[in-house]
């Protein structure tokens, strides 16, 4: 360790150091002039000044001051590894101008990962928009529909600050904008009535009825004596399993879960309330319990046009392990989650969770980083079939559904 510290610096390292030094100096000057950045700067200044006394002169002191500066933005900054994925800060008060209070509340809850799941997020967003539309007052001398469109854009932008929109949310927004454009020439009351009713119908048709139909299709596929494995939490999976139990099926469920979100606990609670016998295992114990499993059922965040299933990180591991052992893997997915996007690996587009949620037992002065990606991508050859409200489909039929759906 010692000889690493005392090793002479390479030109590249020297350059980097000088850059960091310059940036730090510039920041300090700014801090003295500007008032707004004062709190952050002040916190670090005393420690910076105190440091040179205790540490060796020269390089190490500079190194440390540079590192504390980056730590103030994120203790776990990742640098080059997946640097294209950004980490969004937690939202909080005050309510920004032009943002409806219902939308604000939803954004804050999403930002804290309290509203989870593609379906639930879509539903909550539509309900918030419904309230926003009810409370909307058209500025004088403008058409309701036109100004509403811009206002809606601001709400969406704010929701995006909390977390990237889910595919279901994106599809719902596209539909809503279409609906708004249909009533360009109507009066305020008519537009409001139309849209509020349309949103209600949309939630009923695309979310509630869809999951009902999926359940009707999926329940007969569950055999008595089945041992069903599922991962994390999916509202459709939960509904299907509870409906199957209510229909008198006798089966057992193994819930696989993973830190840090621990969504499986929520599913456990729902299944236990329905008196379904359950086992609970973490990702690390997956292979141990896999031998008794007769079917794997999974929820989806999105189905991509190339047949890939985009879902909570860990889904692909479960699907792949099951497929390797010839255990059928079924995906329950409403067609609102179908996307025309294509993706080959889960790295190009993904979402980062907050690494501090991982509760790692590492010291404060270490450069150990943590990476928490939220999604992974299951290849189509690991999926036996997709159960949607349009019927049982192979993964290759996703683009077909998208085309038909768009045309209708």
């Amino acid at each position: 360790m010692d000889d690493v510290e005392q090793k002479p610096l390479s030109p590249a390292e020297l350059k980097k150091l000088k850059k960091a030094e310059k940036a730090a100096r510039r920041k300090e000057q700014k801090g003295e002039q500007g008032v707004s950045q004062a709190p952050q700067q002040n916190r670090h200044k005393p420690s910076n000044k105190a440091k040179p006394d205790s540490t060796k002169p020269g390089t190490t002191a500079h190194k440390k001051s540079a590192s504390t500066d980056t730590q103030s933005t994120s203790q776990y900054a990742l640098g080059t590894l997946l640097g294209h994925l950004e980490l969004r800060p937690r939202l909080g008060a005050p309510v920004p101008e032009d943002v409806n209070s219902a939308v604000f509340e939803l954004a804050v809850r999403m930002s804290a990962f309290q509203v989870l799941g593609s379906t639930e997020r879509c539903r909550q967003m539509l309900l918030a928009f419904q309230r926003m539309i009810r409370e909307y007052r058209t500025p004088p001398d403008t058409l309701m529909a036109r100004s509403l469109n811009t206002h809606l854009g601001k709400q969406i932008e704010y929701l995006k600050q909390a977390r990237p929109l889910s595919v279901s949310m994106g599809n719902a927004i596209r539909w809503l904008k279409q609906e708004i454009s249909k009533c360009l020439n109507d009066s305020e009351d008519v537009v409001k009535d139309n849209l509020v009713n349309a949103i209600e119908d949309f939630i009923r048709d695309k979310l509630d009825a869809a999951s009902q139909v999926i359940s009707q299709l999926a329940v007969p596929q569950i055999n008595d004596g089945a041992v069903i494995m599922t991962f994390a939490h999916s509202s459709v999976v939960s509904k299907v399993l509870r409906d199957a139990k209510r229909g008198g099926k006798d089966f057992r469920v193994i819930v696989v879960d993973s830190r840090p979100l621990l969504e499986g606990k929520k599913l456990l609670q729902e299944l236990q309330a329905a008196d379904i016998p359950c086992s609970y295992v973490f990702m690390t114990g997956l292979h141990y319990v896999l031998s008794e499993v007769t079917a794997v059922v999974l929820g989806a965040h999105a189905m991509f046009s190339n047949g890939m299933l985009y879902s909570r990180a860990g889904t692909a591991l479960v699907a792949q392990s099951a497929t390797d052992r010839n255990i059928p893997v079924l995906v329950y997915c409403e067609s609102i989650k179908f996307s025309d996007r294509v993706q080959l690996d889960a790295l190009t587009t993904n979402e980062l969770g907050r690494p501090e949620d991982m509760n790692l037992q590492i010291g404060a002065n270490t450069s150990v980083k943590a990476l928490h990606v939220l999604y992974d991508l299951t290849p189509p050859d690991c999926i036996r079939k997709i159960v949607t409200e349009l019927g049982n489909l192979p993964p290759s039929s996703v683009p077909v559904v998208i085309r038909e759906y768009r045309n209708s």
Partner: protein
Amino acid sequence: MPDVFPLADALVSRLKRRELHLPAEIATATVQVMLRFVSAHRWSTVPQLIADTRAIGRLLQDAYPTENTAANVVRRVLALIREEERDEDPARNDTHMFSLLSSVEPAPSSKNAQELKPYIIQAIQEYADEIVSVNDSICALAVDIVHQGETLLTPTPGSETLLKFLLRAAQKRTFTLLITECYPNNTDRVGRFAETLSAAGVSVVIVPDAAVHTLISLVGKVVVGARSVMADGSATAAAGASIVCEAAHANRVPVVALAGTYKISPNQPVDVDALIEMGGPESILPFSNGNLVNSLDVVNPLWDFIPSKFISLYITNLGGFSPSFVYRLALDSYKADDVDL
């Protein structure tokens, strides 16, 4: 025979209490017991010594049934005793073709077996030295495995051998190491492992266990500290290792497993579940989740079974070997008579 037990008693109870759980500690402790036993025990013939040694081996094995190291060390010591006996008695070495069909058993050595004692002790002493230097020999191969700028992934941050291996690699190479969280067992070790390597200049990133499939395409090699190795080339390691190795296998990412030779067992894995020890449920679902815990089956395996097809290479203190060669290593170290103690 009862007087052989007091020597092993202390070790047996430490194994039963799981005070010793690192294979390296168990190997060192066992070989020391063997040394003391052969020197202090009163034995008059080699067959008697062998029988008593096997008795100790059985005791140690029963004390910690899912851990093979103690039994493997005893098997190796038995092989050393048998070799010394054979060297002493050239008649037994006589295996030319005329004697193949003869059914006459060679008579037991007429010489005083006590004359063998110093040779046996010396052989065991040499074996003890070999056990101590296992990590050094494995680490010597580190630069052959890790290349500059590589990204490695490990699902077994609890392994001491792996830590030393990566520290050695870090002396010569700059690389990135992804570590799975290995939740819920031994999470404190993950932090220590990460901090030690980070201090040595490795850029260390801890990832959740579920993120492996997303990240595996970034990874050049998966490195695993094996806990025990079966004759068919399969291994057991910390829970979660198998799923990582499977993902690596599916993506054609090589998996390198590290194991000292004392971890190689001559047995085939027949009942895989019997190789795996279970942990308590409270680390998965704390008892504070009252109503949930009551009616739930919580499964917490401590170890994982990795089939040999998921492993590309074993690095042992004798060098690197393909998994299909492991049975040969087992045949070299142990005598067929001692496979079942």
